[in-house]
Structure formats: C-alpha cells, structure tokens
C-alpha cells in the first residue's frame, strides 16, 4: 500500500474518485478511437479504389472528368465545385459574421445583445435540409429574377454557396465575438488614452490583437462549408461538371457522395469505392484546415499581462 501516492491533503484517494476518473478517461479515449476508426476505414476502402487498375492516383488528382461508371476518375470537377461553393459561402459569411461580431462585442448595448444573440443561435439551430430547400425555392428564384432565367440555371453553385454562407454566419459571429472579447480591456483603454476614436480602436487595435482567434474561426468555418452536404445536394446540382461559372449546375464532393450513397449502389463497385476515396480527400482537407487553424491560434497567440 505504500506505493500509492498520497493526496496533497494527506488523504488516500477515494475509490469513487478513481472510478469517475476512469470513466472520463474512457470517454475521452472513445472519441479518439472513433476518429481513428473512421480514418482507418476511409484509408482501407480508398486503397481498394486506388488498387483498381483503371484508377491512377495522378489521374485522380488531375483528371477533368468524373464519371466512375465509364472509367473517368478525375476529381477536379467535384473539387472545383466544392471550392466554388465554399469561396462564395466565405465571401458572404466572413464579412457579415465579422461585422456582427464587432457590433456585438464593441458597440451593442446589453439589451440589443440580449435580443441578437438568441436570434443568431436560432439561425444556428436550423437543420441543413431546411437551408437546402431555402436555397432551392428562395435563393435560386431570387438569383434568377435578378440575373435572368437564361443566365442562372435551376441548380447552381451560387445559390448553394450563398446559403452555406448564411449557415456558417452564426458560427463565425459567435467565435469571432469570443476572439474579440478575449482582447484585454487595457489595450482598448490605452488606445483611448492616446486619443483614438472607438472605430480606430476597434480596427487598429482590437482586430489585430484578435487576429489569431479570427483566422482560426475563418478556417474552421471554411472547413464546415467544405463539408456541408445537404444544401449542395439539394441546390447545387447533381452532375459533375468543371465550370467556373457559379450560375451553372455542378456537383460537389459531398453532393456526389450523398447521391451515390442514397442510390445505394452495389458494394464492391468502383462507384461505391470511389466515395471512400472522396471521403478521404474531404477528411484530409478538413483535418488539415483544422490543424492549421490550431497552429495559427497557438502561433500568434499573444500574452497580454
């Protein structure tokens, strides 16, 4: 019994503390095991896909046509559509989200904030399938009435992208507000002391000080937008096409995965294995983005004491 370490207060640790500690540890372990499991399955099934003699790794990355059933395995059309929707989403979500965050943390009175924040949270709680139909039945007709039926196709990446922007907006606003709120009050007071106006303080002092947190926020939002599935499946289109025109239909990586898996194709067909390879690509992209986001927030994290 001597080898049991003593508690700081000289008591022997109680057994139920040990039990609780073990339970917590197990659940922490479980989440890691699940992540590992997903990664392993993705890699194993992707290996099946790439070991198909018709599929070349290089061709997969550079091919301009995606139609696995007839042996065309170029990821570019899918990747391109994913990037287009995400870029559109970010160009809507980042500025608005940032403005909302600045307003909430620097300008809003407690009363306004008390109204705005719950509304934002409601926005965050809407199921993505609702957003999908919103894109298809509201955003697309809106775009068509502005730019003309001839220019805007019924399924198009712009409408999906804009709605994804709305989807990630609350996430950006909330996280950005946290980042801005974490900037110490002394910095603001110092700026005021030097004669800066409120706007100058916000733009020249607070935002730069919060930059690490903000970049991390944007990257996380980007990875959320890249992984978004339901909206693009409903509104972006259902045929892989390499097109840079956001008013045309194109299929994203997630859109393809959902179309193939809802048709529930034969196991062991190239179509079926291809969705794992695509899943792996998505996993790598979002994983990298999340890692970079962590790195950035650690790297530029300044201590204000």
């Amino acid at each position, binding site marked *: 019994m001597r080898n049991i370490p003593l508690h700081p207060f000289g008591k022997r640790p109680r*057994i139920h503390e040990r039990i609780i500690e073990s339970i917590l540890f197990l659940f922490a372990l479980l989440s890691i095991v699940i992540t590992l499991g997903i990664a392993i399955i993705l890699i194993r099934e992707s290996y099946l896909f790439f070991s198909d003699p018709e599929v070349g790794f290089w061709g997969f990355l550079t091919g301009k046509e995606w139609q696995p059933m007839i042996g065309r395995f170029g990821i570019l059309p899918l990747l391109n559509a994913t990037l287009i929707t995400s870029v559109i989403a970010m160009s809507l979500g980042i500025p608005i989200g940032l403005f909302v965050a600045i307003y909430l943390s620097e300008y809003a009175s407690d009363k306004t904030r008390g109204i705005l924040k719950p509304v934002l949270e409601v926005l965050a709680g809407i199921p993505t399938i609702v957003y999908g139909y919103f894109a298809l039945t509201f955003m697309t007709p809106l775009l068509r009435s502005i730019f003309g*039926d001839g220019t805007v196709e*019924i*399924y198009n990446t712009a409408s999906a992208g804009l709605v994804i922007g709305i989807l990630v907006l609350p996430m950006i606003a909330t996280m950005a507000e946290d980042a801005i709120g974490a900037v110490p009050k002394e910095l603001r007071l110092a700026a005021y002391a030097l004669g800066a106006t409120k706007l100058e303080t916000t733009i020249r002092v607070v935002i730069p000080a919060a930059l690490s947190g903000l970049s991390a926020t944007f990257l996380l939002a980007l990875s959320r937008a890249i992984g978004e599935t339901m909206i693009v499946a409903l509104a972006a289109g*259902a045929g892989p096409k390499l097109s840079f025109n956001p008013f045309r239909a194109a299929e994203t990586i997630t859109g393809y995965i959902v179309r193939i898996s809802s*048709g*529930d194709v034969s196991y062991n067909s190239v179509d079926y294995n291809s969705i794992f390879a695509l899943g792996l690509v998505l996993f790598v992209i979002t994983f990298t983005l999340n890692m970079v986001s962590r790195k950035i927030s650690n790297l530029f994290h300044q201590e204000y004491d």
Partner: protein
Amino acid sequence: MRTFMILLMITIVFAPLGAGGSKEAPVAAAQGGSLAWIEGPSVHGLPGVNPLKVSGNIITAGSSTVFPLSERMAERFKEEGYGGTITIDSIGSGAGFERFTVAGETDIANASRAIKAKEIENAAKIGRIPIEFRVGTDALAVTVSKENTFLKSVSKEQLAKIFSTAKLWSDVDPTWPSQPIHRFIPGTDSGTFDYFSEEVFSSNPEPLLAAANLQLSEDDNILVQGIKGSPYAIGFFGYAYYAENAGALNILAIDGVDATSANVDNGSYPLARPLFIYSDAKIMREKPQVAAFIDFYLSYVNEEVVGVGYFPANEEILQKGRQGWLEAMKDLY
C-alpha cells in the same frame, strides 16, 4: 489496484456494446403454417386477404419507378386494416436487387427491369430463388418543360443524339434553337437508366454518361424540378412522375407514337417497359405477411395502377404471377 479498476470500467462500459453487437433478432417464427389471414372469396384465383389479420413487418426496396405503385398498394393494405409496417425504399432497381440478393435484407424487391442472371446467381448463394410478379407497365416518359415550343416528337435516333454528343439543340436538328441542351436523367443505379441505355444506346451507357450538362439523380422529383426550370432542358423518367407534373411538363411522342394507354397496350410505344416485384418462396412461407401483401398486391393492382400513372399489364402475364404465388405457397394453401 488501478489496473483492476480500469479493467472493471472497461467491462462495465463495453459489456452492453458486446451484447448489442451480437443481436440477431430471432425472425418471427412462421405461425405453424396456418395462414390466418385467408378469408373471403378468392380473387382471380388467389385466396382472399383480410389485412386485419395480417401482422408483422414487410421490408421492400428498389425501383423509384415502381415506388409510387407499391406505396399505393401499401397504403390500401393499411387502410383495410394491416397493422404492421411496410418499408419501401426508393433506391433504384439495381440497389433493390442488391439488398434482396446479396445482403438478403429485404422481403420484396421492386424493379423496373427483369432480374439479371448475375443477380439470380447471387440470390442462390444466400439460398433465395427470386419469383417474378409482373404488376404493370410503364411508358418511359421523355419530357420537356411546358415553355419548350420546338419539341413535340422525337425519333429514337434523335434521342440518341440529344442524350449524348449533341451540345446544342441545333446540332440535332438545324431548325431547333442553338441553345445548349440540359439533360436530367435518373442515376446509374436505376432500372430506368439501364432501360434507356439498353433501348437507345444498345446497352452501352458511355455516350449517355459522357454527355455535357448532365445531371443525374435517383430522386425523380429533382429531375422534374430541373426540367421545369428551363425551356432547353430535357429528361426522362417513369410515366407516373410525368402524370403527377403534367401541368408543367410536356411529354414527347417517340417515333411519332404518343404514350397513350392504347399504344402501350398494343406495344407500339417504343419505350414501354414492364414493372415487377420480386420475392422468394422461402420468405413468403416464413413470413406470412409477405405472402399476404403480394396476394393483395396481385389481386387489386389493376384497380390502382392507372391512378398512380401507369398502365395495367395484360391479364395473361398477371395470371402468371398469381400462378407463381400459388406454387410458392403450395401445401400451405
């Protein structure tokens, strides 16, 4: 001590998982071969069904073309008193057969094409011998938006061009507008896709899939939306989806033949095709509810098929299905 605690915790946490993992819910045993639901006069040679006395669940999956018909039959089955659950997954004929013959998860496969030899082989591996029941006929509908003014009728050759190499409408016929063709077709896993590539492209789907501006979906409503959306869009699917959206879509005559009931019956409409459901004698005998549903289906399908938007199969072929049912249930009934 510590190790012991952790081990103990692991056991406690994972024990239910282990137990859950090995659950093979015992299939409801056949009720001693007694088909309690048989009641009333026989219909077209099949025993009368009293849905009130049918219990247990039925799992079906397959063609999105057959889906509305099976759904209607299931609704009627429930309206007349069936208390169980019928699952009907609309996932495409190929996928439906996959679940029926490889995974063996379903009791009935809905299909808009006949079963393939390979699929029969697969079924044999899990001890199933598919029995075919013809339930109706579909006229595959090639449709355009109501706003389209230049297309009324196409030939099969034109169809082949429209759905493959032609980029502009004027590439097919110089009198048509020089606007890009937008194509909306069922996904590669659907019987409709298979059927179309068989009929129009002699079973080679490559030109169809290589076409530009192509959108594929297993969800026919997505196709309908897409075709409605532009005067230069074209697509095809089962007749029921056209019938449901006849206000927004125009159906094209093929080789000058309209998709009317008469033309489908006498076989002159070039894109008429059979609709089936498949099951297996062993399933029907072990799960009396499946036998009851198929009995009900074959007895009343002709009363519902037109309302759903398809055409009745001819009586002789329907009778063949009923004969199949009787053979499968031999000795029990």
